């Protein structure tokens, strides 16, 4: 064991240009001190687990790199892996980088002669896992309008979308997110991610009707269920078509715009 870790130390020190250190955390488990840090300034926790095969004095051909659950513990301060979808994303990140997880421990069996690139890969993957906190609902939700804009401008360009249109020129408080003209007549599109925007879309449609504008109105919800029942009812009464989610809109927008073009 001692000979093994001394050999690994020498080998890795050379590969790391002497910018590393070891400490035996438990018998056979060595914490590596590498110049890799989380955003909060803490060092990324990396251990070499040399407990397996300790009876064998020869230098192992592979070494297990393990975090002993520290990466997912750190992630859990602000983000839990508590749904099948999050689980799927976690395991996709791990498998794409050749790592695996058992009971929260993230591991990689690295070839001894390529420990340096293995540790680079390991730390990079841990950083990706740490960044799963960026998938938090409030962060993703804040991207709804950007995602809608990206889809409209990238995929519906042949319907000549115009952004931020005011159909009643003197009413700049009644702004439409996008205007399409598939058949010469306007289709107004509103993105709705909360109750406030649902109410604004309702008022806008009713005002456009009141001044006898000829138009169709589409609503894209971030989450249809999140808008209150009364607001859904008012909006349903005022508008022509609602897409319950951005996903539904991306799948079906063209079909509905093409149908408009037929008239």
């Amino acid at each position, binding site marked *: 064991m001692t000979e093994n870790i001394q050999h690994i130390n020498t080998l890795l020190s050379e590969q790391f240009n002497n910018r590393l250190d070891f400490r035996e955390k*438990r018998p056979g488990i060595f914490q590596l001190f590498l110049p890799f840090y*989380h*955003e909060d*300034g*803490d060092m990324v926790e990396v251990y070499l687990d040399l407990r397996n095969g300790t009876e064998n004095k020869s230098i192992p051909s592979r070494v297990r790199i393990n975090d*002993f659950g520290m990466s997912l513990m750190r992630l*859990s*301060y602000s983000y839990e892996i508590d749904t099948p979808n999050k689980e799927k994303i976690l395991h996709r990140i791990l498998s794409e980088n050749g790592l695996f997880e058992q009971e929260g421990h993230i591991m990689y069996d690295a070839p001894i002669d390529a420990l340096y690139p293995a540790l680079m890969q390991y730390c990079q993957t841990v950083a990706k896992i740490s960044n799963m906190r960026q998938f938090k609902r409030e962060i993703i939700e804040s991207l709804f309008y950007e995602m809608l804009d990206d889809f409209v401008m990238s995929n519906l360009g042949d319907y000549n979308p115009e952004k931020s249109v005011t159909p009643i020129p003197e009413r700049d408080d009644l702004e439409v997110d996008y205007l399409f003209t598939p058949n010469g007549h306007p289709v107004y599109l509103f993105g709705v991610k909360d109750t406030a925007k649902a109410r604004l879309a309702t008022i806008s449609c009713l005002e456009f009707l009141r001044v006898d504008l000829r138009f169709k109105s589409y609503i894209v919800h971030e989450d249809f269920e999140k808008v209150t029942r009364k607001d859904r009812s008012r909006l349903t009464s005022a508008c022509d078509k609602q897409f319950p989610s951005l996903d539904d809109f991306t799948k079906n927008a063209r079909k509905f715009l093409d149908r408009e073009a037929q008239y």
Partner: protein
Amino acid sequence: MEYTDSFIEELLTCPKKITKAPAREMKLDRGHWKNNFEVESENGEFKFSVFIRYNDTFNENFSIGLDYNPREEPGTIALIRSNGPHGSTKQWDHHGRTHTHVASAETVNNGLKPESNIEITDRYTSWNEALQFFVKRVNIQGTQVYFPPPQGNLFEETE
């Protein structure tokens, strides 16, 4: 919103009451033990979340933190975390000292990881001791029911 150091200190030290109690026992999940609870300032103005974690393999690797949940914007701001000796830090190139991460106006306003100021401390050596330190530091009232301090509490005389 622009944060100031005095506002952050107010958030840290204002008297707080527990609004959602911690679980009776820590729960093992993916290699670590966990518990969470929620608190708010006694005047009802500020809301916070508290988390307690310690590693199953290395019990000395623990973290107890307070996140501020501002009403006016989504998301949370990590104000303080009391950590065990899990390894070196960028500011302190040592091989394992207990330490505390604390937010500052500079880190919060500049979009850095809020709690990226690190202070080395010797006021606790285990997660249980750190918890007693933490609830006093952030002034949470009524924690004795859930987390009774050990006999001869190390911090009694310092308060």
